[in-house]
């Protein structure tokens, strides 16, 4: 008998009495503010032209990699994700946002290389404000989740508070996350 069959047999022998599966409502009661919630998580939400914003915010950026036609990077995307190691700014367009948490939704379709969301020093995400859904219940009903091999809800830069609870932004991944409202 394989391990799989042994585990399944023991699980079925020991399962408690059946409990019904509840429906999950959409909980639309509270209106959430994307910008406020993103700021709480250390991200920034700005309006305006993304290229002008990047030039102004990251004047010293030597390497910019973009996967969206809205912004021109200065280096084409490599084949090997490890080659993203020296990227200063990554630029990508999100499929949608979540107001409750201030999150943006990215998958391999947007990132091209999944590591683009993590290896660059900074990440700039373009987001059409019309795509923002109210909360996570709406987000998890989005069909995009069912198609993506890999999908991430990114909410602010990488962060840690593992030493004495002191918040450090830019733990191991991106040091900053800026979401640019852009249709």
């Amino acid at each position, binding site marked *: 008998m394989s391990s799989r069959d042994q585990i*399944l047999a023991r699980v079925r022998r020991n399962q408690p009495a059946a409990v019904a599966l509840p429906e999950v409502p959409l909980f639309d009661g509270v209106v959430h503010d994307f910008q406020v919630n993103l700021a709480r998580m250390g991200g920034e939400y700005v309006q305006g032209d993304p290229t002008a914003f990047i030039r102004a915010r990251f004047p010293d950026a030597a390497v910019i990699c973009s996967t969206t036609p809205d912004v021109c990077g200065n280096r084409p995307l490599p084949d090997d994700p490890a080659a993203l190691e020296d990227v200063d700014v990554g630029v990508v367009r999100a499929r949608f946002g979540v107001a409750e948490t201030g999150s943006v939704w990215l998958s*391999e379709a947007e990132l091209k290389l999944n590591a683009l969301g993590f290896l660059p020093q900074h990440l700039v995400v373009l987001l059409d404000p019309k795509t923002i859904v109210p909360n996570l219940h709406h987000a998890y009903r989005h069909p995009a989740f069912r198609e993506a091999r890999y999908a991430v809800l990114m909410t602010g830069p990488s962060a840690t*508070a*593992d*030493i004495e609870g002191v918040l450090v932004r830019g733990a191991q991944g991106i040091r900053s996350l800026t979401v640019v409202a852009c249709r």
Partner: protein
Amino acid sequence: MKRVDHAEASSHFIKSKAHVEFHDKRLWDLRGKRDREAEAIPEWEELRALASAIKEHTLSHLGDYLEQFDRNATANGMQVHWARDAAEHNQIVHDVLGSFGARVLVKSKSMLTDECEMRPFLENRGIEVIETDLGERIQQLDDEPPSHIVVPAVHKLRGDVAEVFSRTIGTDPKKSDVPYLAESQRRHTRPYYLKAGAGMTGANFAVAETGSFVVCTNEGNADLSANLPRLHIASIGIEKLIPRLEDLGVFVRMLSRSALGSPITQITSHFRAPRPGSELHVVLVDNGRSERLGMEGFWPSLKCIRCGACMNTCPVYRRSGGLSYGATYSGPIGVIIDPTFNLRKYSALPFASTLNGSCTSVCPVKIDIHEQIYRWRKVIAERNQLPMVKKEAMRIAGRVLSSPRLYRLAVKAAQAGLDYLPRSMIYNPLNAWGKQRELPKAPKGSFRDWYLKNR
């Protein structure tokens, strides 16, 4: 196997006043942040009820959901393995690494791999294992297990971390400011993502209908581990299953709010299929879970989503430190899980509680934690696993409390005793309560005396 003596082990932690005070304050601060988040959501209690019901439903149909996950994950291109116990899990991971020729493994935090003691197993076979979560890395470099399931090095102060890092990754021993220490770990760890042959993660949830799994982190280390090497292995306990994608809405909304008081983790990642040109292996691990599922009164502990809220609120945990539990899982949730691994070894843990019920009231999946702690005490007493002093004390207390005459005599004797006996006799080695505390002053008369006089 030696019985863990929680009180004795915690006495080492308690020796440093600075450590205990900070630990207590830091965890209580997390509890406060959790409260503010919960109070800001009108449907919080409804979410708890939903989360509990979804988990109970899944556990009561776990066989079907495991098969559904297996089928869908396989169809998505993942390779699914099944491990009955820790040894089989470790062997599977080692074999998969071997088939890839991987000698360096970058991994994010996984309590399950700690439970399986995977790291020493792999290291003894020549694999270099790099914990990439900052807290877990501190613990790895200091050769200690994590003391908390969410913040593994919460029992350490910045000076301790500076000492560990200067000894192991070459930081300046005189510099202990936190951003410097975190930046040093960032610079030390990032090259490993690029050269590692394999990456490993745990999983917070596994979704049966999509054959996908979810990893919730803040540092970005799990996604670097999973998205750079060409091999990703994920170890998943069989209790992590949930039926549907929409169920994630309930759990993701509550996980980080309960854990750290933030609305979501910085990075919430969903893995459904391997990247083109890469392999994604999932190891579904039992290691005692299927047996626990059949334990009347104890199986609801399998609902746990490992948020750590019960630890942060527990007065005993906050003042004794996670390492004093001598187990992978500490705090209230550890107290009810650990005895299922080894009743004798962990028989002291259910007594590391005041039964105040705070753990139960903050648990996002409504596990009856303090009631299970009480149930374990009964099991331990019935199986004769109580230490002699506790057993005798309970036997005598039982006789005294069941006889009004004996009880009244005892009250009088205690009142007189506290007034007239020398300290050395009252604070004797059998008086565990009086070790760090003064006994309260006895009132002049008992309630019964007052009542007889005034009725």
